[in-house]
């Protein structure tokens, strides 16, 4: 039953996709690094960006791995690996796969799916997420030109505009977390408090580690506390 879902052919496709993503990442990293060097950006800052980003990425990557695990029950291991290596997200792949399975008269909850349903799922998951990349190819250069123009005309407003967009992004997640139940609220507040503690440790005690790793420390600490709160209050 599960032979086709975990066949060598699908893993071969996965390896090609992983190789492509790796190649693109290395090419873009190299390009940015050379530009940074030409622009006089200290190498130490660039090296630190690599190190801190690698550390920060570990925990969210584990949650992506968990989605792979969830999907693997019905779809095998290779397809979730492929889908989570490229455009999409934890929040996209599961609903997309389930919607496709249901449209084909099946459900992911029922376990392994026949190859006819699998084919519908893989096409839906792929085609459903194409709008972002297509929009980028068609319009991103123009869009970025407009943003640059705003910055060139009024740099202070340009910087404020970007800050406002980011504050908007954060606010939507704050709202959703605060409305997500007591454990979600406690986790959010704990994470913010841990960030305050990290900043104090860096500023008052001069512990530089807490500046560079404030975000992963706060995030992992708050996730650990979420386990504690769930035990205390009952999930």
């Amino acid at each position: 039953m599960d032979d086709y879902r975990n066949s060598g052919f699908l893993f071969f496709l996965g390896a090609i996709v992983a190789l492509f993503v790796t190649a693109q990442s290395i090419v873009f990293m190299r390009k940015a690094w050379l530009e940074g060097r030409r622009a006089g950006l200290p190498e130490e800052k660039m090296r630190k960006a690599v190190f801190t980003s690698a550390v920060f990425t570990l925990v969210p990557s584990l949650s992506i791995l968990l989605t792979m695990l969830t999907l693997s029950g019905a779809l095998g291991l290779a397809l979730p690996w492929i889908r989570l290596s490229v455009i999409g997200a934890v929040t996209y792949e599961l609903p997309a796969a389930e919607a496709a399975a249901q449209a084909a008269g099946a459900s992911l909850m029922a376990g392994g799916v026949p190859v006819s349903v699998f084919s519908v799922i893989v096409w839906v998951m792929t085609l459903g997420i194409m709008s972002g990349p297509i929009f980028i190819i068609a319009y991103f250069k123009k869009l970025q030109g407009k943003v640059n123009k705003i910055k060139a005309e009024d740099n202070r407003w340009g910087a404020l505009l970007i800050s406002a967009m980011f504050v908007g992004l954060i606010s939507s997640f704050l709202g959703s977390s605060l409305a997500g139940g007591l454990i979600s609220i406690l986790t959010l507040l704990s994470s913010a408090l841990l960030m305050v503690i990290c900043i104090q440790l860096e500023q008052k005690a001069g512990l530089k580690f807490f500046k560079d790793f404030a975000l992963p420390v706060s995030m992992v600490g708050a996730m650990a506390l979420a386990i504690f709160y769930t035990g205390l209050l009952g999930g």
Partner: protein
Amino acid sequence: MTEQEFSSGYEQSIHRMGRFWMSAALLVILAVPLSISIYFDAWPAAGPLLAGLLPIMMIYVPIGIIEVITFSPMLGSGSTYLAFTTGNLTNLKVPCALNAMEIAEIEPGSRDGEIISTIAVATSSLVTNLVLILGVLLFVQMAPVLASPVLQPAFENILPALFGALGYLYISKNWKLAVVPVTLMLIIFILVPTAPVGVLIPVSALSAIAAARFMYNRDMI
């Protein structure tokens, strides 16, 4: 080198390079279902395909476009091309890029921000890739650990755990900008707790921009 010179030279080549890689990525991504259908001789019937695709596209086509408009000014050009190939933007790539710029004490949207953001997103993509490969290779060993019920509350609360710390970091610096969007989002989520956060990100961002412009015009910020 001035910002202007940087913009014209680097920007031109990064867009050329970005479009090339993004087009190649689309071909690679599309080749997956195509190869599967050919290899297994399993072509989806039009009915189920459309029935599955329509509800997904109704939600994710606008989200995909809105994500580009919202995130690209924060990320910069190089990392936008890369982040939209590798995915997981809100839960990983955008916070990662902003965290790297924060540590380097560099403004998002600036020349140096563009460079640091691209390096951060590239690193993040490589690490995720590696973790997923290890996950495939060590599936049998890792599956029971990751799926253990004890750890589930931690993974279920990863977004509050991420955005609590990020929220403090940015809102403490821009608290005036945050008053309107935070209030608006709180009201919406209290009234409709299941509202999709992806759809509300642009609403929240637009309210923040409107409030920022209002205060900027009146020298309040």
